[in-house]
């Protein structure tokens, strides 16, 4: 365990990623304090370039871009994290059942997983939101519905490999019940790849949420990074910062999560890191 933290925190990429993430999370948590006004409220004339009064300028309606960015962090992170949690919960359940019970149950569940992996997932998310109508809740649903298959595959693969190990057979021979074996013997040993995949999934969820918001399918009346880019794209020629700034925010946040996720992976599977 000590070795894990050494390897994890000794990695400069992880430190950079964690630092940026800490800042984004802080801003998201205290957006109301840092920028008390409604981010949709008009504070000045439109199209002020980034300057002393408005660090990141104002948009086409005269709204403060910095305030939008702070509140957007909250929306984007919340939706991404909840969507990931839902996807991980569902994916783990399906993967664990498929891997542990095998046979026909496995066949049916994996066909289903393959099906959801085959269909164009982003398009499916669009259709889903179009049908359900855009809202934060429906975004979470749509993103998690298209994100769970990889989790299922990882968990199933791990469960299959752990299950074939002799300590699980020893538990069967000892007479332990299936549910207890799954919970005490199998799942604890699948945790590390699950944590890695889950953390990387947050990054994907942010990208999907931003793309949906960019297309105008985001949560209405809630500022988000994708929405800001979508709103600013018509003014690309004259007000470049409207698109550039939130885009960089997305890029850096996704990058930071990927760095931390990979650091986790390297720290949990040191064999690969030595390559």
């Amino acid at each position, binding site marked *: 365990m000590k070795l894990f933290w050494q390897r994890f925190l000794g990695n400069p990429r992880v430190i950079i990623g964690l630092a940026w993430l800490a800042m984004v999370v802080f801003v998201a948590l205290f957006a109301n304090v840092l920028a008390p006004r409604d981010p949709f409220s008009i504070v000045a004339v439109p199209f002020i370039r980034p300057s002393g009064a408005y660090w990141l300028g104002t948009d086409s309606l005269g709204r403060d871009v910095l305030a939008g960015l702070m509140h957007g962090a909250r929306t984007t992170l919340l939706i991404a994290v909840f969507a990931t949690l839902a996807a991980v919960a569902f994916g783990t359940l399906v993967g664990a059942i498929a891997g542990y019970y095998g046979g026909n149950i496995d066949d049916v569940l994996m066909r289903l997983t393959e099906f959801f992996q085959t269909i164009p997932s982003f398009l499916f998310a*669009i*259709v889903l939101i179009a049908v359900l109508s855009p809202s934060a809740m429906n975004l979470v649903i749509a993103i998690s519905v298209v994100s769970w298959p990889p989790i299922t595959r990882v968990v199933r693969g791990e469960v299959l490999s752990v299950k074939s190990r002799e300590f699980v057979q020893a538990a069967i021979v000892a007479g332990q019940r299936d549910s207890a074996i799954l919970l005490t013997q199998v799942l604890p040993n699948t945790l590390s790849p699950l944590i890695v995949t889950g953390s990387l999934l947050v990054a994907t969820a942010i990208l999907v949420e931003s793309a949906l918001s960019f297309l105008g399918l985001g949560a209405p009346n809630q500022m988000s990074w994708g929405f800001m880019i979508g709103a600013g794209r018509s003014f690309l020629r004259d007000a470049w910062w409207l698109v550039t700034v939130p885009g960089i925010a997305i890029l850096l946040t996704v990058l930071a999560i990927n760095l931390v996720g990979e650091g986790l992976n390297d720290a949990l599977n040191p064999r690969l890191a030595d*390559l």
Partner: protein
Amino acid sequence: MGGTALASYIVRRLLQTIPVILGVVILNFLLLQLAPGDLATVLAGEAGGAPKEYIDQLRQRFGQDQPVHVQLFNYLRNLLVLDLGYSFRQSAPVLELLLKRLGPTLLLMGTTLVVSLLIGVVMGLLAALWVKTWKDHLISVAAIIFYATPLFWIGLMLILVFSIKLDWLPTSGMEDVVAFNEGFARVVDIGRHLVLPTVTLSMFYLALYARLMRASMLEQRGLDYVTTARAKGLTERQIITRHVFRNALLPVVTMAGIQFGSLLGGSVVVESVFAWPGLGQLAYQSLFARDFNLLLGIFFLSACLVVIVNLVVDVIYVLLDPRIRVG
């Protein structure tokens, strides 16, 4: 393996695609059930646009007063004869609209697939050859940044730089319609329009393939058969080109198949950024016209495309990996 074995494999794989297609149809039907209003109004595009007679006709055709499974059966039957309905928003049959938009999307997909696979594989190969040197780090950093970049944003940034500031490439569309180019000039024109959307869409995937190829190369290089090859007196270059490369390529091929669905999804964003007249843009338009019939038609066609591409990938895989043949 003889040609007949391959043919029988393809037939079997084709049969396996039937449940997937059926699944998509059922999913479409379920989505329609989820939408507010009955099947006919939803299909016709809810806020008007369709004449009352058409809605009544639809109601009758799906058997609105029949139980759900009968409705599903009717819906299935219609789709299976490729009767995708009529879009009143666009005043054209859905199938006709889709086929018109299919070409541009396939063009964009094709170039993206080729560009991202070629560059990604080469980048991954080079990074693995230069492992732990500054060149490897440079490639890895580039890949991880590309991997984190939102498609729609990089598209807009490319427009900002290459179209607006530098004025090198066109901002949108597939060709300059007022120029009435013909022959080679038209090909060049379309090519120029194709550059930015392809680059935009390729970035994420080439990063993905580069990372996978690097990891796969490094993994293969640690395997026993490489030691055997070394003990035979082969040069490192011969070991890479004859032995490691082909083995390392297999997971990339698999991944390219898996990712095709997401590539199509990405085209919605990219096509709407670049006003590329393909299926993605049509999806974007139908989304805001609340033209569900058209939207679901696009979804259905895209899923069919993915299934076909996966089939092709599987066949390529069989040709690359002799172990599959015995099963």
